[in-house]
């Protein structure tokens, strides 16, 4: 059992929890994720690690309340416990000491993006960020990102914050203005990451993405999270979840992610949010 020591409601569908999990806290690095089960007989839900405190042995996660299992999680309060919490899973992001990087986060995708950008900043990289959401309400971690980013841009579908439109509209503007980025890291719903790659690929700009396919065990056993990258089958849980976005077969990912749509499957929670499209 893993104790919840902090909980914050970030907006009407997104919440943040800090949970005591010594094994994960001691080892995790940006880019890695955990799998939790809320209770006995619960579903295994993969969620991104947003932050960690090695001394306190705690790990912070952000999740979107969209399905049965995340609703169960949302019912838990400070002092309660979750049944299982395993990790860190996946490969840490291979962060390079570039000169300038642009982070693009959509919806709850800002959560996994944040630790990567923070680390890059610590490595001395100049970081710009585009944050997107359906509306102002769905922009999360703004203050945290502003703490280190050189420039923070916004895009919302309804124009309630920053540019009315998509993160890709801001991206195109920045590139048109002559901004040069050594790498772009885009994390958000698949359609957003695909749209970003559609812009960056013709220009040959290195673009990292983080995938969150349907997953069971998270250790390479079930093969449910397979994705085609550069024509090869990869497992997001052990080979990823970060991949070279220019090589990812997004159409296949989108299709596989919808496999359990009828069953209202909650495995998609985390990145495949419904609040940003």
């Amino acid at each position, binding site marked *: 059992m893993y104790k919840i020591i902090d909980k914050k409601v970030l907006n009407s569908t997104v919440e943040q929890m800090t949970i005591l999990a010594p*094994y*994960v806290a*001691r*080892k995790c690095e940006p880019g890695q994720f955990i799998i939790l*089960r809320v209770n006995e*007989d*619960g*579903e*295994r839900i993969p969620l991104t690690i947003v932050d960690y405190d090695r001394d306190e042995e705690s790990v912070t996660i952000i999740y979107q309340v969209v399905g*049965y*299992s995340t609703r169960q999680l949302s019912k838990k309060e400070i002092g309660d416990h979750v*049944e*299982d*919490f*395993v*990790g*860190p*899973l996946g490969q840490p992001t291979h962060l390079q000491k570039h000169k300038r990087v642009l982070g693009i986060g959509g919806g709850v995708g800002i959560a996994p993006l944040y630790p990567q950008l923070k680390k890059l900043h610590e490595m001395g990289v100049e970081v710009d960020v585009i944050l997107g959401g359906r509306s102002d309400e769905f922009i999360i971690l703004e203050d945290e990102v502003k703490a280190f980013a050189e420039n923070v841009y916004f895009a919302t579908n309804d124009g309630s914050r920053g540019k009315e439109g998509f993160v890709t509209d801001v991206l195109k503007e920045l590139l048109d203005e002559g901004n040069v980025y050594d790498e772009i890291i885009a994390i958000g719903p698949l359609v957003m990451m695909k749209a970003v790659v559609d812009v960056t690929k013709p220009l040959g700009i290195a673009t990292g993405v983080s995938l969150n396919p349907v997953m*069971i*065990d*998270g*250790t*390479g*056993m*079930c*093969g*449910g999270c*397979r*994705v*085609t990258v550069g024509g090869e*089958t990869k497992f997001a849980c*052990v080979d990823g979840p970060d991949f070279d976005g220019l090589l990812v077969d997004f159409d*296949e990912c989108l*299709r*596989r992610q*919808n*496999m*359990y749509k009828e*069953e209202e*499957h*909650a495995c998609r929670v985390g990145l495949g949010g419904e609040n940003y499209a």
Partner: protein
Amino acid sequence: MPNMSTVKVGMPEQDAKVRVQNFEEVALGYSLEQAIEEAERCLNCKHKPCMKGCPVNVPIPEFITQVKEGNIEEAYRIITSENGLPAICGRVCPQESQCEGLCVRAKKGEPVGIGRLERFVADYQMAKGQKIDIDITKNGDKVAVVGAGPAGLSCAADLAKYGYEVTVFEALHTPGGVLMYGIPEFRLPKKLVEEEISNLKDLGVKIEKNVVVGRSITIDELIEEEGYKAVFVGTGAGLPRFMRIDGENLNGVYTANEFLTRSNLMKAYSFPKTPTPVKVGENVAVVGGGNVAMDAARTAQRLGAKNVYIVYRRSMEELPARAEEVEHAKEEGIIFKLLNNPTRIIGEEGKVVGMECIQMELGEPDDSGRRRPVPIEDSNFILDVDTVVIAIGQTPNPLIRQTTEGLDVTKWGGIIVTDETMETSIENVYAGGDVVTGAATVILAMGAGKTAAKAIYEKLNK
């Protein structure tokens, strides 16, 4: 006078028509009278050929003699002196090619039902709730076991009996490994697995769930920082293999691991009462011919598929699954498409709508000693299916070898050990089970765990 019947006492079973509607156990087990009657078929041979076939050295004639006398508790004590998981082994061991394969009675008729008797003894004792007390003298040393599957559990049990403080690290939320996620409820009720694992805990074995060795903690850290004197790696063969044909990533294509894990470990057969679903269409093809393929096919049938095919590239004779499982599958209506090999999976709008196969014939024997399947030209046809389960085997999980420097592995990823001691290229790190041999049987993995436990004991006591 022994019972000279040439056939085993029949095992009561759920009727095939009924059992395809449920996930309850198929074989129902002997009554005390039936067990005694079957035990009386044992000739109590002096040279005990049956024992030579048992990877964990169960004193078979001795325990059967006790069953004959009706001393089931004593029979249980004899079995568990060597085998910590008798209810499991009595059900899933390939007895026909082990103990029973060497039984003298098999020369004229059927061998003694050793597996059925082992199962009976374990179940009988479990139902009575009686446990056997074992005196253990602690020696103060700590040993870590990685993976709570058959290899790890049997290694842990023996290490505990030797007096070590044993911690088993398990990646999943439930110990048991393949016994929990792989083998279906109708062949191995999960309650029994839980019960036998709880016996282990009674020996003082600690099980830490949700720890992925290689990610949560490394082998080096276990030894250098956590003070474990030795580590046994029994992480199994959990990495699915693919055919590398078109369409394998279509929606509706499962690996057997995913299909069975959803159903067994996550209890998807109770969906939506349980939160994890599994999708089974009307026509399901299971590719492969081993026990895993039989398990997947029979699971699909129970989940409501209309037609379930086993697609296997060799003939019935080469089918690697246990005869009993094949028999059960046939009774349940599984359709065997033998001498057929898939060439591509066909999709429409990203979903499986068919699988193209080519017919095969058997040529000369290959390296495996089995006749090699050769495609018959222009014999392609399309099997009308909407779900495909790939059950063509697994290779060892790579996490530990990727994160353990100096660990020698084969080119297919199996950990290399010395035969006698199961020690790896790293001192005091041992390995056994499927992670060493590639996918094999529960009992071979258990045997490897026992061998390693003994070697660890001998080395640490030098």
